[in-house]
């Protein structure tokens, strides 16, 4: 992969995925980018004698000799970072705004049209042990650090569009500095929580055949049409939870690694790597934030009785039967079922 052109990298990765309909435009763009960046071998040979070709070589990132110290001090021009800036400003920043407002609004509408997922038999009052104390601590450690990172990250990414125009310079400077500082220091807490959660919960998150059927009825959360009243099979974690887990595992890895690359200047990374880390960090954040909003909606208002699991570690017996029937059957059978006193 030619890493010299982020624009080309981006068009290779994203255009086929998202914009198949404008694939032709995508290819057209990559072709233009190639023509502007590349030099023919003849031009490279001429660079010693032709000023025009020397200038072209400098623009393409040729390095020279300098007494200056510092990363890439001997490179006169490197346009990769600017290509990354354009990608960030034109695609990722709007995508982030859509991810936050769009997903929230979509769920709000869904909630009002569809209503919450009620327990068909109401609350039984008998509470079944679902999460250990260690699980609760891990969850809230990750949740609080993640929310802190999301809020400060949104200030860093969107603040200059949504907040700065409405406050004084002094307030803005304080907000963005505090935001960035918190983001830097909460990051390691999130990383620790992320590693522990991934390792501890991974055994419960393997995909099973019945998870496919869960998707076919959208988890049984839809209260109208052919989906009404369906309660698909599900083990300890349902297919949606498993998808959330693996999304957070994969993009959490991306966001942790790219975050380390961004926050430690002592690494002295070249601009290509730093800008790539910035774009990966932002893209992963968009996906994680969108999923986080869904997760919070599901737990707090959509699934009746759902929030109890993470408040006390115990869930209502009817909730367990309705949403995690296979798990309930299993613990009942092997005797590990534990009621709250």
């Amino acid at each position, binding site marked *: 992969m030619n890493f010299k052109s982020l624009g080309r990298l981006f068009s290779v990765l994203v255009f086929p995925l998202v914009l198949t309909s404008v694939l032709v435009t995508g290819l057209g763009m990559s072709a233009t980018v190639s023509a502007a960046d590349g030099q023919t071998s003849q031009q490279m040979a001429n660079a010693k004698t032709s000023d025009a070709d020397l200038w072209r070589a400098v623009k393409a990132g040729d390095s020279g000799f*300098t007494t200056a110290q510092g990363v890439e001090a001997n490179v006169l021009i490197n346009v990769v970072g600017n290509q990354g800036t354009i990608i960030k400003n034109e695609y990722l920043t709007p995508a982030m705004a859509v991810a936050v407002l769009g997903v929230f609004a979509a769920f709000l509408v869904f909630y009002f049209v569809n209503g919450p997922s009620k327990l068909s038999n109401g609350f039984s009052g008998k509470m079944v042990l679902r999460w250990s104390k260690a699980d609760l601590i891990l969850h809230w450690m990750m949740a609080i650090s993640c929310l802190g990172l999301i809020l400060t990250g949104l200030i860093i990414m969107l603040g200059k569009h949504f907040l700065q125009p409405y406050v004084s310079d002094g307030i803005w400077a304080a907000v*963005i500095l505090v935001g960035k500082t918190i983001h830097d220091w909460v990051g390691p807490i999130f990383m620790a929580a992320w590693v522990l959660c991934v390792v501890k919960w991974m055994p419960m998150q393997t995909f099973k055949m019945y998870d496919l059927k869960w998707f076919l009825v959208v988890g049984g959360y839809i209260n109208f049409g052919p989906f009404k009243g369906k309660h698909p099979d599900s083990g300890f974690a349902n297919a949606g939870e498993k998808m959330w887990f693996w999304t957070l595992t994969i993009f959490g890895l991306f966001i942790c690694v790219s975050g380390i690359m961004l926050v430690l200047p002592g690494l002295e990374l070249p601009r290509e790597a730093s800008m790539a880390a910035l774009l990966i960090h932002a893209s992963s954040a968009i996906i994680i934030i969108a999923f986080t909003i869904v997760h919070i909606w599901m737990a707090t208002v959509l699934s009746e009785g759902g929030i109890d699991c993470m408040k006390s570690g115990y869930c209502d017996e009817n909730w367990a039967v309705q949403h995690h029937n296979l798990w309930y059957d299993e613990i009942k059978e092997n005797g590990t079922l534990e009621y709250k006193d």
Partner: protein
Amino acid sequence: MAVMKFLCDTKRCIECNGCVTACKNENDSALEWGIQRRRVVTINDGEPGEASISVACMHCTDAPCQAVCPADCFYRTEDGIVLHNKDTCIGCGYCLYACPFGAPQFPQKTAFGSRGKMDKCTFCAGGPEETHSDAERQKYGSNRIAEGKLPMCAELCATKALLAGDAGIVSSIYRDRIAARGNPGAIWGYTPQTGA
């Protein structure tokens, strides 16, 4: 209203690094250890076609640093000079990634190895603080523009290779030089087609 630009005449630059020294001396009050706002790069060093170019912030019209900055601390003066506010800068380093010329600099020796406030060439135009105040001197260095003078690097260039000033005037000086030299191809990528 002017549009301030630097231009380095590669046929005159002799890689003496006088501009680098002039800059460091003039803006010494603002420069923390390890920061060098200007540098000279020699392409094809020691080979035929050797060319030296002095480079610092190019004061872009559509500056990538300004576009990428999450704190939005950059601004353009009415002279077309790109400046930044160190009180708003959060030291994230994005401008360093975005700048094609490697102009933004960060102090290397701060607590826990984090980045300090960004520093870069100000075209000797100071910063947002009150002109010629102590605060301006400590944070941004000199403000020669306010005194009606050009940047120290260009003023002290022994061969007058480094030109600074309004784009129109700089390019007309350069055009005169090319005409006087009568050497086609001296301007990067431009070979005049007129004349014998």
